[in-house]
């Protein structure tokens, strides 16, 4: 192995491991799933996520109050400029937020928004990263001299992205696109592009040297057809694992952007990261306003991470003994 290749090993490895063809792909997956079901971490993660998705899907229909209406300001109960924000009451289960809105309703509705940001951002990163990584992997594996050059060029570009501190990258993307929900999603997604690109490429390269691809090539199947019908599907497992993990980082990254004042500006759609950032001004007055969304973020991110890690381990043939 060349030295320069080594540093990328970490990301590539997962791809190669899980991408390495087994005697039967079906039984590999089934076995992985079996191992997953025995892992308490995976179960915990799955339960957390299940609850989270349920709340995100159905919660907004069940909230007791309008999450946007400044009830507490209108009736004069909330005077956050003077440090007066009433806490938990029978009417408002988690009290008011600093704008006199019902915190409980905002938490519930926020779950959907948070999930939405995470999912779209991850999907964006996945789509762009897969495109780049898939192209690079396919051209490396099948394309001869020019293919290797294209691969080299794409991967150099990805390396530069990887070298950029992710938050600064996100900050400058939001600065260019202007503040909106979409630009937050793009900025957060962009950060994971290099990860997905490397992953898919690594996995595809491992695949392309496998027997069935050689067989297909020998049988005269067209190159792009091989890429589409053989390489891609078999490289997807590690990418899915990474996507699960990325969902967690996306949610956290979005919260970081909010803290720097670059989060989703639309207050009509409460989001946990924004709520946490907004609560920074009232940490002494009503720490709960920060703690609720923070706990929400932490638990959700933990859920995604636990499940993702468990999946990664279940799919890793080296750790199976």
């Amino acid at each position: 192995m060349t030295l320069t290749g080594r540093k990328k090993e970490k990301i590539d490895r997962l791809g190669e491991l899980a991408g390495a063809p087994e005697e039967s792909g079906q039984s590999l997956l089934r076995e992985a799933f079996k191992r997953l079901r025995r892992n308490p971490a995976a179960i915990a993660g799955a339960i957390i996520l299940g609850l989270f998705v349920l709340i995100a899907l159905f919660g907004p229909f069940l909230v007791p109050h309008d999450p946007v209406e400044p009830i507490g300001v209108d009736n004069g109960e909330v005077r956050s400029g003077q440090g007066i924000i009433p806490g938990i009451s029978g009417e408002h289960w988690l009290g008011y937020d600093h704008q006199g809105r019902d915190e409980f309703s905002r938490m519930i509705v926020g779950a959907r928004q948070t999930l939405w940001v995470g999912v779209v951002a991850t999907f964006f990163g996945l789509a762009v990263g897969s495109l780049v990584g898939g192209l690079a992997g396919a051209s490396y594996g099948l394309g001869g001299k020019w293919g290797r050059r294209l691969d080299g060029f794409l991967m150099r570009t990805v390396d530069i992205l990887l070298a950029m501190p992710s938050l600064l990258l996100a900050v400058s993307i939001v600065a260019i696109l202007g503040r909106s929900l979409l630009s937050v999603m793009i900025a957060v997604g962009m950060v994971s592009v290099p990860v997905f690109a490397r992953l898919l490429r690594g996995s595809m390269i491992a695949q392309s040297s496998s027997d069935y691809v050689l067989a297909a090539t020998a049988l005269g199947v067209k190159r792009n057809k091989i890429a589409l019908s053989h390489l891609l599907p078999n490289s997807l497992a590690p990418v899915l694992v990474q996507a699960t993990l990325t969902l967690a980082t996306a949610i956290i990254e979005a919260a970081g952007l909010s803290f720097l004042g670059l989060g989703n500006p639309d207050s009509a759609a409460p989001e946990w990261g924004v709520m946490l950032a907004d609560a920074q001004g009232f940490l002494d007055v009503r720490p709960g306003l920060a703690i609720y969304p923070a706990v929400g973020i932490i638990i959700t991110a933990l859920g995604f991470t636990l499940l993702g890690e468990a999946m990664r381990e279940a799919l890793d043939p080296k750790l199976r003994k």
Partner: protein
Amino acid sequence: MFRFIVRRLLQLIPTLFGLSLLLFVWLHRLPGGPETAILGERSTPELRARIREEMGLDQPIWVQYGRFMKRVLSGDLGTSIGTKRPVTTEFLERFPGTVELTITALIIAVGIGIPLGYIAARRRGTWIDQLSVGGALLGICIPVFFLGYIVKEVLAVNFGWFPTTGRQDVTIDATRVTGFFVLDGLLTREWDAAADAIMHLILPGIVLASIPLASIVRITRASVLEVVQEDYVRTAEAKGLTEQTVRSRHILRNAMLPVATTIGLLTGSLLSGAVLTETVFAFSGIGAFIVEAIDRRDYPVLMGFIMIVAVIYVLVNLLVDLSYSLIDPRVRVR
């Protein structure tokens, strides 16, 4: 070895060139220029136009880039629009802080992460395993700025054990030599200054360590799991070596390879975390400075920073590669 290093450094040049061009165009596309940032609330169209003209911002972008490159090639990164100090001076002053912080975080993360990962691997599948991995993952799931606040509130404000802001108590009259406060304190034998600088590093170090910790635990665990199955570990056991010898010489030394790679790859995310950590702890480092620079459209600072980050990234990975050959004799640098 020497040729290898030279070659790696030479490879850096085209990368830097491409990166600089890309960034120059990208940055100058940002809406609002430094002129608005400078003038603030009192900006008028005339003043803005005059500043743009004087700074040459009204010229075509390639002319501006040409001027920038000319200066860079003569070894001058220009001066910050915001502070009017040479970019190099700013960096020399602010990088040490970030480096100290990052090193502290790495020491903490490695110091906790490797034992934790090792224990998790050796007790694989038990509650200890779940707890150590889960705990490490929890660390990465807490937004850094929130963790920073909590840690300060508990360990500083509540118990009064640590300071919450800055790199050193401002009432200490410390001599500056290198800009690394701890090192300076040791060099000048101002022990109290060094001790104080260390105290200022601990809390932000803990907070920043939460980011690499999870990766280090995970990689260590996976790596140890792999290594303990290796034949040479069985050989070592068969030799009747003590547990400590087997652990340190035969398991960990081999398991460290992927961990070293991970640390190299982590520099990017550590810098990201440093941005938030430095803001929360009013810690004078490069991260918070750069966020300010983005706000100010401080082009020279941003360009210089990206160049330096690219160089650091390459250097760190070079170091990682070199450290391979230290850890793993099979790797010969070519």
